[in-house]
């Protein structure tokens, strides 16, 4: 055993003296740096520019557009769209509505313009809401509308759920501003509740039950949103880790996640580490043959499998080291560009109907561990290829071809709806995606992915060890 330790030490010694390692390290940090720069400052600046430009020009734009539409007849224009535009902008001017006004952000102005252009009956009421700048009235109007619609559809139970958000905002004097997270969160909660009620209704009326996991997750989403509103918690780092992905996909949640934790939870650096692994694993065996040093390597009192195992361990250790650098680098650069304000927020979950707090760093750790799987599988594949070939460039090339070719084929299968594609290793390597449910194969599950990965690993390693120990030098 200690012989393997010595051999690993030798491999690390050799690897450390290769310039390529340093180049990779620097490249990795540079990528992390620029990714965080983009996530942290550039995106903020960009969106800031857009908002500023827009809010400065609503009334100006109104004048321009109105002048244009006047030629087509103004309120009497032939074109429905022109009329709509006319009402929209003339009312905005009349009531001095800018982009940051709730009447614009809630969509009330749009609704009115549409109603007025169509000449529907709601127009008068909407106009009075606009003129009175009465957001409570807006909520009441929306609720009345829901009551009416669901009442006619014979699903009055749903109206209450659909109105939950409006009622909440009304009770807590929250304006319908899309700038205000509480308004958005209330709508999210409302959406989750609506979903739950419709599951109940479906069961009651048709006997079709809902997947209990989906039901529970939806319920949790509602509990969580309500909790956040009541405890004034704007940002939940757990959202950035795809913890509520099922519900998110089902509901199309509108409230925002933490930009800080989004930036940290991203696995963008991992692809690069996978690439590095191909290069390192590709050279680690085939390179010895290429340089002829394999004779030096093997002319020692250690069985071949030990020598190969030491190499494999060294490749894996290098991969783990790179991953650590990527995660830590990501984190530090994120702190640098975004500050540590959100770094200390707790992550909120729902467990057995109760909201529990947990450190987001546990989530980060979990994600970090999951991300190692992809790197390990990539490295193992490249290692197996490397121990079959005598040229490291060829080994790197073949591994790249297999990986990218395989991934492309898997994506095609996914697009073609061929569900058996999920049995390919390429659909399973990224356990983070499997966990987040973003691989694109519907029936994919964590245990299934683990089994597929293990089977492939056995084949890769068996290939590597069998060929290396039998090889004639």
């Amino acid at each position, binding site marked *: 055993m200690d012989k393997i330790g010595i051999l690993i030490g030798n491999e690390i010694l*050799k690897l450390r003296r290769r310039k390529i390692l340093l180049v990779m390290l620097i490249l990795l940090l540079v990528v992390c740096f620029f990714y965080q720069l983009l996530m942290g400052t550039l995106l903020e600046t960009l969106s800031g520019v857009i908002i500023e430009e827009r809010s400065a020009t609503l009334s100006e734009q109104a004048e321009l557009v109105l002048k244009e539409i006047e030629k087509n007849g103004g309120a009497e224009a032939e074109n429905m769209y022109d009329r709509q535009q006319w009402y929209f902008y003339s009312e905005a001017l009349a009531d001095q509505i800018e982009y940051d006004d709730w009447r614009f952000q809630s969509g009330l102005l749009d609704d009115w313009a549409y109603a007025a252009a169509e000449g529907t009956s709601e127009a008068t009421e909407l106009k009075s809401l606009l003129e009175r700048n009465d957001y409570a009235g807006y909520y009441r109007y929306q609720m009345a509308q829901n009551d009416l619609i669901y009442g006619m559809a014979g699903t009055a139970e749903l109206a209450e759920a659909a109105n939950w958000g409006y009622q909440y905002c009304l009770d807590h004097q929250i304006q319908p501003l899309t700038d205000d997270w509480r308004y958005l969160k209330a709508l999210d909660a409302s959406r989750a509740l609506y979903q739950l009620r419709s599951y109940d209704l479906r069961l009651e009326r048709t006997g079709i039950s809902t997947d209990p996991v989906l039901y529970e997750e939806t319920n949790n989403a509602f509990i969580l949103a309500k909790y956040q509103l009541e405890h004034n918690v704007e940002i939940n780092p757990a959202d950035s880790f795809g913890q509520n992905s099922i519900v998110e996909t089902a509901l199309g949640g509108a409230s925002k996640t933490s930009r800080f934790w989004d930036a940290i939870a991203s696995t963008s650096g991992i692809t690069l580490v996978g690439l590095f692994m191909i290069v390192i694993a590709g050279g680690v065996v085939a390179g010895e043959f290429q340089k002829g040093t394999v004779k030096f390597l093997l002319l020692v*009192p250690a069985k071949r499998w030990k020598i190969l195992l030491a190499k494999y361990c060294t490749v894996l250790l290098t991969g783990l080291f790179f991953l650590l650098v990527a995660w830590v680098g990501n984190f530090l650069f994120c702190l640098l560009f975004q500050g540590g304000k959100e770094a200390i927020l707790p992550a909120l979950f729902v467990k057995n109907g109760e909201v529990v707090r947990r450190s987001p760093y546990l989530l980060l750790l979990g994600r970090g561990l999951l991300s190692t799987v992809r790197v390990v599988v990539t490295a193992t594949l490249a290692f197996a290829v490397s121990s079959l070939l005598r040229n490291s460039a060829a080994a790197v090339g073949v591994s790249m071809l297999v990986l990218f070719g395989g991934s492309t084929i898997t994506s095609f299968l996914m697009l073609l709806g061929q569900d058996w594609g999920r049995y390919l290793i390429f659909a399973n390597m990224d356990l983070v995606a499997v966990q987040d449910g973003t691989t694109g194969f519907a029936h994919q599950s964590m245990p299934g992915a683990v089994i597929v990965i293990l089977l492939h690993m056995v084949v890769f390693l068996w290939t590597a060890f069998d060929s290396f120990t039998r090889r004639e030098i």
Partner: protein
Amino acid sequence: METVMQEKQPVLQISHLNKTLGNRQILKDVNLETYSGEVFGFLGPNGAGKTTTIKIAVGLLSLDEGDISIAGYDLRRNFEQALEKTGGIVENPEFYPYLSGYENLRIYARVHENVTEERIKEVLELVGLSLRAKEKVGRYSLGMRQRLGVAQAILHRPRLLVLDEPTNGLDPAGTKALRDILKRLAHEEGLSIVVSSHLMSEMEMMCDRVGIIVEGEIRKIQPIEEMISAAKSGYEIYVFHVSDAAKAAALLGDLPAGTVAVADADHLEVQIPGAEQEATLAKINKTILQGDVNLYTVSRKEDRKLEDVFIEMTNGQGGGQIG
């Protein structure tokens, strides 16, 4: 002295070794034993199977049939113990070019038991690389790499040292130094050394015993003295520098002095039997001088006989060619 040693256990024992690569049988029933305290010359023309035998002995190639043991350890069953006792260079010594000579040795030393920093410095000194040990091997010349190879091979004080054409790339001084090192290691420290080569002259200068392999078969294993005396088969050739070679040859015609040949206008070559060599020489000198031919010098012709024997032995089978 040799008889005493040969009663000991062999350090390297190869018995009934067969090896097929592709669909050619490269080695045919090779049997070989080498002992502590001797330099064994493994001689054969290109492609005879020297490197193949050596590779099998150090575990780089598998063996199809037969048994190999090193210092009493069976190569297959106790691979690690056997290799702990083995040092070697196979074909060209290859090192990691991005590491220094010293670092390459250190990597090698770590896998062996009891190799200290001092030992590394000691062997570097021994092969004359101390001054350039910190330099990257990528910048070494072929001869320097060869020296480093020797240093690596003896680093862990093996009992068996296998060197495949170790003088390849060495300058004359280096070759001589290596010969001296190997002789000392064998004769004073009791290593068993196997040196392969296709140059008989080189073998002659450092080996105690020689085994000749041709087309994968061992043809002959013999102590070098026996081989030399057998090659001479009892006579030596002397060259007579005279004023008139033809006339001198005619004069010597009646003498029972062995074959006489005229080399050119003023040189005469005469085979003289080992027994009563001085008397015969004196007689020839007298005869030439009395026959009124000037005799300038008499010298023994440089001995090329061993090489000739080797060539005969290997060429006779029509297989190998001498490089």
